[in-house]
């Protein structure tokens, strides 16, 4: 019971945050990344129980790409299907700056109530 509440809450939180995190990862990366690499980077950065399934990264990447926030190109790979490499666009960076501001504001606001308030 408790666990399913926790999972539902996490899922609701992830709805917008995965897109924000993906934009962040791609804006910091010097080179283009493909889905598997991104998923692994995120998993490595987070210790313990994963916050979201790596499978959810792919459809969000595709959606961001369809909205012009990312561009992509296909590169053949020896180990499997050709990989799709993503890169952030100028529009993507603008959106990222925007969203980061919203995120900071939201985080500070939530913390004021949840973290017992700072002094």
């Amino acid at each position: 019971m408790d666990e399913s509440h926790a999972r539902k809450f996490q899922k609701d939180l992830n709805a917008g945050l995965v897109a924000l995190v993906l934009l962040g990862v791609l804006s910091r990366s010097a080179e283009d990344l493909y889905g598997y690499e991104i998923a692994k980077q995120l998993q490595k950065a987070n210790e313990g129980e994963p916050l979201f399934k790596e499978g959810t990264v792919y459809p969000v990447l595709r959606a961001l790409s369809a909205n012009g926030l990312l561009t992509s190109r296909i590169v053949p790979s020896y180990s499997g299907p050709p990989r799709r490499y993503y890169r952030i666009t100028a529009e993507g960076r603008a959106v990222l700056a925007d969203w980061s501001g919203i995120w900071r504001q939201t985080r500070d606001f939530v913390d004021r109530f949840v973290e017992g308030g700072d002094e």
Partner: protein
Amino acid sequence: MNRAPRSIDEYLRQLREVLQGADPALIQDALYDAEEYLRAECASHPEKSEADVLELIASTYGAPEEVAAAYRDTEAKVNAALRPVIPRATESPNPLRRFFGVFSDSRAYLSLFYMLLTLVTGIIYFTVVVTGLSLSAGLAILIIGFPFFLAFIGIARVLALGEGRLLEAITGERMPRRPVHPGARPGFGPAGILTRVGEMLKDPRTWTTLAYLLLMLPVGIFYFVVAITGISIGVALIAGPFLVMAQHLGWDFNDGISVMQPAVLAAPLIAPFTIALGVLILTLLMHAARGIGRAQVVLARALLVKPGM
């Protein structure tokens, strides 16, 4: 809930099962992404067997059910964002408005353009396929025959993907956004070139793709003739009375423009009917174009998108 998959093929099969009924192109993309991930995961853990890797998949990549839900949700959101609902004249209860509303439908114009374009693409596709097949057969006795054939199939697939993208741009119906990959055999790691070629030759889609590309020449000629005939008759009927009237007013057309029998068109009682007939023909043509666009998507889905997906 399915039992936990033990191999990549099994995972992909389960994912296909839970996605049943979704857009075929979405399914193709989802399977493609999953395959990219699963194969990369297996390749980065060469010490583990495929079954061992798959055992952990539900907690990393996600079980097929979760992944399917993620694609459905994202697709719904993106579509809602990209295609806002706008009231369209084509859905008006008034039959007359609905009939003429086709002129405000950008898809109808795009489809009409597609009908004209198919003559060009049809000739290109046909030439590529006929040249490719006959050169492959002719070069078969030489060592370059086989590589040539493979390159030719590759080109045919790129053309098929391009045709799909074109149709999506014109009709808004979702078509695959990635080429299909024949994939590796389970348990053997990356497939050898011969296995892949074998798979490709067994894949009925390879051959239906060639059939589609060949078919586009006669179909393209038909579309082109219908479009050109409709446009010229419609425009001529509308413009005719005005031209005749202008001639009567002393306008001189001696520089080569010929006008239909003035005796008929010039009669003031007949002119409105000629114009109305022209408008009717153009409107019917627009409706036909929109219908042809949709029919073409059905045909392309049947022949270009992997069957059973």
